[in-house]
């Protein structure tokens, strides 16, 4: 019997890049922790998520076919449960942010190039409908009964924004040099975060390094 259940260990995420499934899972787990601890919504990881779903459903199909008392069945199922949890928690955290900062996120994303957007197409559709739904509710119950000069829903005044000036814990995946953090002044020496060192700092000062993978939120 073939123990690999016929799944390829290597997957293509884009035309010129092949990675192992194991690497995809690691990327997902790191993205999950970053999303969990960052105050703002981070770029979507649809490639990674979709790839993981392919793996899960491929594995599930194959598991159906073998003798259910085979010890592998339970082991694989346990692992699938773990991966499904990470996926679910990752997407749930994103959805919670999308709901809370809806207007702000839609607005920010509309200034980005299509392939640089933070919202996945599914999330974008959800965000827009969510925003409509709540604005319609305001309109129906309150705004349209109000005097003309305050009847308009003022997105700029009312939008809820994440507080980027929040403290986060992080670990350097590779060395970052010459950091000038929020609150440091000209007399302070720029900071170096050596590979594997751990820190606490304001998110706003390290956001770009989190997004490019130099720093990992923990």
């Amino acid at each position, binding site marked *: 019997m073939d123990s690999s259940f016929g799944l390829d260990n290597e997957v293509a995420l884009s035309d010129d890049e092949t990675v192992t499934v194991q690497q995809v*899972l690691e990327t997902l787990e790191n993205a999950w922790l970053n999303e969990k601890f960052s105050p703002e919504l981070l770029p979507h990881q649809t490639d990674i998520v979709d790839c993981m779903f392919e793996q899960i459903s491929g594995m599930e199909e194959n598991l159906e076919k073998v003798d259910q008392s085979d010890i592998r069945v339970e082991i694989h199922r346990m692992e699938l449960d773990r991966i499904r949890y990470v996926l679910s928690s990752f997407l749930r955290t994103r959805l919670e942010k999308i709901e809370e900062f809806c207007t702000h996120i839609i607005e920010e994303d509309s200034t980005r190039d299509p392939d640089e957007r933070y919202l996945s197409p599914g999330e974008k559709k959800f965000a827009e409908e969510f925003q409509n739904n709540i604005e319609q509710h305001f309109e129906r119950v309150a705004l349209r009964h109000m005097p003309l000069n305050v009847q308009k829903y003022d997105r700029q005044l009312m939008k809820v924004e994440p507080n980027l000036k929040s403290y986060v814990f992080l670990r350097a995946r590779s060395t970052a040099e010459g950091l000038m953090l929020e609150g440091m002044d000209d007399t302070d020496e720029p900071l170096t975060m050596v590979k594997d060192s751990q820190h606490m700092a304001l998110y706003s000062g390290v956001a770009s390094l989190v997004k490019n993978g130099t720093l990992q939120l923990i």
Partner: protein
Amino acid sequence: MNSAETEFIAEKELVSIVPNFNYEVIYLISGDIGPFRAGLPVKVPIWLAMSLKRRQKCRIVPPRWMNVEDLEEVKKQELNERFFTKMPSEHYMVEAHLLLSVAADDIPRCEQIRTILKDIWDIRMSKLRSSVDQIIKTNAIHARLDHLTLMEINSIRPLLPHALDQLFRLQNGRGPSQASGSQAFTQ
């Protein structure tokens, strides 16, 4: 992040087991495990070791550091050093917690191990308390936290970072939304 999630992350760490069954390599998404040969040690993630142990399919080999002598040494060092020392495992507390809960019969002098671990944890917690005091007192905008394990970081979450956020906000104005209504009068 709560303890259950921290535990979930720590469960990915590998531990040696001695299985009582034979099986070829299993290709997990997170990496290959096996082959399993009855009586021969093999490394598997903790979540799997726990499950196999519960079903009496293996015995767990305690990690190298999980013994009274080594831990006494760790404790001594932790007491002597002013800063946090490097723990033998990034998840020492969680690993011990998990393994001792299902495999106490595989780990010699487990009660003593529990006590020393508790001591080490307490020493580090009290160091952490003074670090926190220091961070607040000096209004630090950045702190280095080397050698703190995830569960230890978790023990000051969310209170410390959230309190510092408020301190920062009090110091620098009211935050992104100046939520006091528009001042412009338009008719």
